[in-house]
């Protein structure tokens, strides 16, 4: 077992983990935050997406000990003082989910995009969430939610 210290959703956490532990298991099992989902476990579906030092990554492929000293944000870290983030609210407003399993991962991918690029084009949104599989929505409402969260309407943006 090796010591791992990192910042999770703004708070410093310390856990003992095995050498080849995956970040997703540490987040869900050791730290009890089950918002991050495991779908495929091989980096295809994006349900486990978290943000590490600003970048969206699949936490099922990320060695836990590589998070040493880094800043990790999960879906639980987005709402502030009980208020949803603009994107979380837009996801509800646009009915951009049905079963909800892919939603945390999709929101983390899109949040990473919006942090780097506050006014993304439709193409840029599609590219940023291409690694998040959704079997319910057909993606259209998800794209609309991201556009809305970035303060853009369909008309502002390049059309499909």
């Amino acid at each position, binding site marked *: 077992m090796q010591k791992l210290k990192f910042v999770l959703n703004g708070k410093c956490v310390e856990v003992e983990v095995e050498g080849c532990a995956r970040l997703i298991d540490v987040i869900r099992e050791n730290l009890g935050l089950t918002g991050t989902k495991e779908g495929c476990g091989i*980096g295809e579906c*994006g349900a486990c997406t978290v943000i590490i030092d600003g970048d969206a990554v699949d936490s099922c492929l990320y*060695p836990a000990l590589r998070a*040493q000293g880094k800043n990790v944000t999960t879906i639980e870290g987005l709402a502030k003082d009980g208020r949803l983030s603009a994107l979380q609210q837009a996801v509800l407003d646009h009915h951009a989910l049905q079963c909800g399993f892919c939603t945390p991962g999709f929101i983390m991918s899109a949040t990473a995009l919006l942090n780097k690029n506050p006014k993304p084009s439709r193409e840029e949104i599609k590219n940023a969430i*291409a*690694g998040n599989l959704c079997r319910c929505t057909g993606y259209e409402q998800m794209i609309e939610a991201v556009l809305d969260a970035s303060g853009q309407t369909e008309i502002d943006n390049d059309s499909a």
Partner: protein
Amino acid sequence: MVDEKDYLVANNLNEAKVLMHEHCGNIHVLAGGTDLMVALREGKRSGRDTTYLLDISNIQELKAIERKKVTISDEDCNTNEDYIRIGAMVTFDEAAHSGLLLKTAGALCEAAKSVGAQQIRNVATIGGNVCNAAVAADSLSALTILDAKVVLEDLRGERVLSIGEFITGPGKTAINEDELLTEIRFKPLEDYYSAFVKLGRRKALAISRMNVAAALAFEDEKITEARISPGCVFATPRRVQSAEKILIGESPSEELFMEAGEEVSKEMVRITGRRWSTDYKYPALSAVTFKALAIAYNQAKSDT
């Protein structure tokens, strides 16, 4: 299931070389980890039997993309060659957006953009892609048209191999147990226009079924240089010189590009023989080659 591992982190290149030497044969390098983490869980491949994992993602020396003069000692004379050097731990996202690579290795940027999804490109590295030596590795055909070389280092020193020498078979390389692949270098293709076209089962996250990297240089409306390398087609990456010869000295045209594409397919059959899939692959490879050549030529046209 995964056996217990000892996770080591190297903070600079020398530390990494010392650890590789100390635990030679019992240590596995962890680059981006996007392949290795899956393999470890499935109990596959070499990582399974080693006690140590070596995380090299903190080594700053391995993260740069830069132009560098490299001194080549050749008998009595030393010549300085201009090289582009890509550190082994440069991620696909960094490669896809590098201004220097966009100028000097456009096909490599296109290949980098086509890898996996954003979450994968944020961590997966060029060095890891080359060391895994998968037949479908997206970077290999693009690196092959650059005539890229890999630099391998251990405590004793370094050696430089071409991609062709380094990759000895599907998933097999010439790397020694205590060596690290530290950089990939190539002479900038400044006067070339290059393209990378990938055929996958879908647009996002697809493993290449087939891909082609191509580069063309022109003078007075004639093709002066041509480089073509198909991916996923041969056991090890190579250029198709017989197709390149068809292009050199000629004026670019659709017919010419089709002829070169057909020649690439013929070469595939010559090297790998006829298989059940050949009826599908033959026209597909010609068409993907044609497309890559056409894109490279269109760049040249829009540039003048």
